[in-house]
């Protein structure tokens, strides 16, 4: 496998993403709103009596939100990256080049993964700085960075992003427009929302063990989806069976 070819494909997609304002806005606005909006919500919590426990619980729950965000953002980019080729009918000349299916799939994965991870990391840094700024006086120490957020950002977020990209490949083989792909992708993050609600309602806590379990589950799903998407992303399948 020639990794440089995957990089050529990914950089081509980066150039296209830069030209599409809608993708840029989708990629930047939501993480930006979250990174600023969530600390504002937390700042209101500091007004209540004896708020430390609630604030810590909320900070953990909001940290988990980045796993969901990685899923949403990657889904958007992957839909454009793969369906964009399908819509512009550029898959045939692309598949005619001396590039293997794995190089293509990996290139498409990088194209969706890197911008998404970059934006999420930038957003999380803003979130952590602002959250620390608004909570320091109340809880008496800097909550971020901590082991949980490191675990989330370095393990769970990439796994969530990869899961989303694999699903997008599978969805792209059956639909013909980006919106439908995004809508179908959105349905698939409902389980993440379920976990999030359990966190907000303190049914489960965001400790390392739970994060580890979440990461293992994500990894296992990733592994299964990887084999399915690899089977689907074969030139014979793409040109004859993709609808």
């Amino acid at each position, binding site marked *: 496998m020639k990794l440089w070819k995957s990089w*050529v*494909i990914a950089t081509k997609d980066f150039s296209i993403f830069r030209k599409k304002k809608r993708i840029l806005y989708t990629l930047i606005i939501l993480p930006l709103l979250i990174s600023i909006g969530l600390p504002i919500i937390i700042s209101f919590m500091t007004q209540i009596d004896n708020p430390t426990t609630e604030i810590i619980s909320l900070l953990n729950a909001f940290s988990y939100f980045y796993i969901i965000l990685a899923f949403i953002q990657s889904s958007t980019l992957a839909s454009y990256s793969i369906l964009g080729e399908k819509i512009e009918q550029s*898959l*045939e000349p*692309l598949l*005619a080049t*001396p590039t293997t299916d794995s190089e293509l799939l990996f290139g498409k994965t990088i194209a969706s993964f890197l911008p998404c991870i970059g934006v999420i990391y930038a957003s999380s840094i803003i979130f952590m700085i602002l959250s620390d700024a608004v909570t320091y006086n109340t809880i008496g120490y800097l909550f971020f960075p901590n082991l949980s957020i490191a675990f989330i950002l370095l393990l769970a977020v990439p796994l969530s992003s990869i899961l989303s990209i694999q699903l997008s490949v599978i969805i792209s083989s059956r639909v013909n427009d980006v919106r439908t792909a995004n809508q179908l992708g959105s349905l698939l993050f409902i389980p993440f929302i379920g976990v999030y609600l359990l966190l907000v309602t303190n049914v489960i806590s965001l400790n390392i063990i739970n994060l580890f379990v979440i990461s293992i589950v994500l990894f296992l799903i990733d592994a299964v989806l990887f084999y399915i998407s690899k089977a689907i992303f074969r*030139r014979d399948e793409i040109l004859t069976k993709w609808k």
Partner: protein
Amino acid sequence: MIDAENLTRKFGDLTAVDKLTFHIKEGEVFGFLGPNGAGKTTTMRILACLISKTNGEARIAGYDVSDEADSLKIRKIVGLLPENVGLYDDLTAYKNLDFYGKLYECSETQRKENIEHFLRLLGLWDKREVLVGTFSKGMKQKLAIARALIHDPEILFLDEPTANLDPESSKTVRDFILDLKKEKKTIFLNTHNLDEAHRICDKIGIFNTKLMAIGSPEELEGSVWSNKTIIQLEQMNDKILKALNDLSLNNIRTDNNKLIIDVMNPEKENPIIVEAIVGAGGHVQYVTRLSPTLEDAYLKFVRGNK
């Protein structure tokens, strides 16, 4: 250079390509004629290693299209112009070609030289920094041809290269293909355009799921019917008909004062026929030679399959 032996592709119960056998020599331009849905694009895709075959064999420059390692080698020496050009509208003409040049593993120098060469040749150099989304259909088609040639391939697969183009753009593209022919590129041309096929191709295959006929344009035309000679007389009479019957001609038909005669060798037989008519007292107003066309051959073979 391109060999197919009983090449077959099925989609479920549907046979798209049925036991196709042909041989295309290096430097030959092969026209693949057939109606819509005949399986031409499927054949081209199999040969360009885009989809797999169900049965049979196909080799490009000696490489087996069904072998994974060979298929990468084939794709390096093959240039493809698909039916839908599939360019990136959000990239400039230059960036489109540069992207493909990289994937075809051209060096930076080769990419720069080839991009400039083909864009200048096709009249797109001044538009190199313009987004392809703003291009006309003809400009996109030319750019897609440049893309197919960016790595200087030995073999070209062109799927309907002039379809939906205005006459001027069609001519530019056709002339360009003729230039490629002079460079001894092996070209596999899918087309509906019989005139184009006649002008460009050395060999033509008429195909409708199965290969109905194969040969040079002249051979195919000749296979439809023999040449005919039409002679307009001032007045037809029995004496003339008797004189013609004495010549032991194959098939003589009359239509008022017009004679329609099948001839094998018009240059040799026509003077003898005219001499016989004049000798029988006939007055010849004009003599016309009627030859079968590629269209006649195409219709004969395609309809014969139905």
